[in-house]
């Protein structure tokens, strides 16, 4: 089990090195001189030369690449062009907000998705199954930013019930105890609901399929033949086995979840990595964009490792060290 996870960790590190390499290559491929971009149109030739030297652009490509990798490893990610703050500080403030939003959304959408998928598999072919299938395909197809705007329209402008922007109110610093927590939760409600709603559809579709595959296997027939009630067969025998492909899906769906989070963060001004990335892109703040890309990839890699660990734990066959068939 640990050997397999160790191999996964090595793959994850390879992915991160790949991302840093990719950002380096793209920066060199893109039009324009990075030094000129940093200094703006009013820079003189002497300033440009000095800046190029400072950035190491007058060195051979291999040396530049080595220096680029070295700076990333040391955490020296440069200064944001737009804000003048160190990139590392900006992202250090941002990543907990993203992990909080994505993690909670993952939890809620998998719990609800499991419930909906199990219900559909149990009532297969019924009107309820069809209705829930239509609902999950529709949720799967709705763009997150649009769903977010519609929720804002209903809950912020019409019902005047929930705030639409940011992670905390303007008076958050003055609040204490339960009032502060309530303020946080109210701000979390709409972004979390948006990200969760678009997630449930995919999970429910997959759980339904996985359960129907499991239900067709002989051990489920045996359980039924023993006279177990259908609910026990479904929950204790089928669901547990269907959980393994579902946990694998969790790891595989993390990149898509992060993609969704980028838009949701942009719509709700949620102070996470996605918003930093979008604002960096809009301001052509490329040191920030490069680092935000790498941090997003790192979060996905770590999330994948956790999902792998969970899938390994859920499957007793791999827990004992043998590979699952």
């Amino acid at each position, binding site marked *: 089990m640990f050997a397999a996870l160790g191999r996964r960790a090595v793959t994850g590190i390879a992915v991160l090195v790949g991302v840093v390499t990719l950002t380096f290559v793209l920066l060199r491929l893109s039009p324009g001189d990075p030094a000129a971009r940093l200094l703006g149109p009013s820079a003189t030739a002497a300033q440009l030369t000095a800046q190029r030297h400072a950035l190491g652009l007058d060195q051979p490509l291999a040396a530049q690449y080595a220096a680029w990798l070295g700076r990333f490893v040391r955490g020296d990610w440069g200064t944001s062009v737009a804000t003048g703050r160190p990139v590392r500080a900006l992202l250090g403030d941002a990543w907990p907000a993203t992990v909080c939003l994505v993690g909670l959304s993952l939890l809620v959408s998998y719990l609800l998705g499991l419930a909906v998928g199990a219900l559909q598999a149990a009532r297969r072919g019924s009107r309820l199954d069809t209705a829930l299938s239509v609902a999950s*395909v529709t949720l799967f197809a709705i763009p997150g930013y*649009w769903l977010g705007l519609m929720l804002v329209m209903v809950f912020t402008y019409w019902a005047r019930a929930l705030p639409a922007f940011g992670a905390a109110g303007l008076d958050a610093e003055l609040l204490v105890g339960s009032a502060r927590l309530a303020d946080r939760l109210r701000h979390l409600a709409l972004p979390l609901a948006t990200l969760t709603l678009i997630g449930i559809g995919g999970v429910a579709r997959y759980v339904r399929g996985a359960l129907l595959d499991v239900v067709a296997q002989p051990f489920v027939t045996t359980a039924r033949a023993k006279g177990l009630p259908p609910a026990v067969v479904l929950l204790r025998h089928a669901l547990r086995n269907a959980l393994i492909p579902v946990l694998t899906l969790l790891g595989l769906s993390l990149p898509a979840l*992060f993609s969704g989070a980028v*838009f949701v963060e*942009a719509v709700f001004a949620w102070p996470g990595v996605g918003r930093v990335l*979008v604002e960096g892109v809009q301001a052509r703040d490329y040191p920030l964009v*490069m680092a935000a890309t790498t941090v997003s990839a790192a979060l996905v890699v770590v999330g994948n490792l956790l999902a792998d660990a969970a899938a390994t734990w859920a499957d007793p066959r791999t827990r004992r060290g043998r590979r699952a068939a």
Partner: protein
Amino acid sequence: MRRLLSDRRGSFGAVVLCLTLFVAAAAPVVTTGTPAAQPDVVGARFLPPLATDRHGGFHPLGTDRFGRDVWTRLAYGGRVSLSVSLLAVLLSVVVGVAVGAAAGYATGGLTLLLLGITDFALALPRVVLLLLLASLWPPSAALVVLVLGATGWMTIARLVHGEVRTLAARPFVESATALGAGRARVLWRHILPNALTPVIVATALAVGNAIMLEAGLSFLGLGVQPPTPSWGNMIASGRDTLVNAPWVAAAPGLALALVVVACTLLGDAIRDVYHGETADGKRET
């Protein structure tokens, strides 16, 4: 084909997609014809759906803050959104099939290299890659096609790789080789045509995905630039007028969701019909 259309999901998807393509193609005929027209900025702005302005112009979906007809912009925006997404998917299918076929049919180092690149690209959030690319080049419709194509080929490559590997071990491939067909001919004439169905399914899903992402990029101001309408920048411009004119943002979003649902259902239906045929009815369709 007949079985596909007798499937409710398949016929729904096909009808919705055909209607959308028709409206986009016939936009000059079915609308007022000029998406950027601002005939009466003050008098005709923020008219609700089904309203008639004081010049007698009828607006089935209302008007936006410049008095532009939302239905006209929706149809012309559909032209942009659909053509950008279709071109992008075409690009990713070509790249995906090429990479997948090469990885599936070649042996040794090349396979490992291609699969490594594919898995690497699959492990990254696609939107993050899109934003990275969009930040380095100036925004345009052509850039959207390129970046969507460049970030969308991996699933298709994986699929084709798997199919080619399975098919290459089948007896008919062996007999083609025994008859003296070269490797390229075997791949092109015998293997790839048989690997097409899963690619078609993946393409249907990819079109839906590309439409959503194109709109997403335009929504963030990194895709198709106003005043050219696209569904994404229409949603973005409706964002500021959510309170007094919710239809401006709602209409393109609903159109988008409808088309994506249609693509998903059509893809599902094709897959089930295909499985039903290959498994000889053993699997339920």
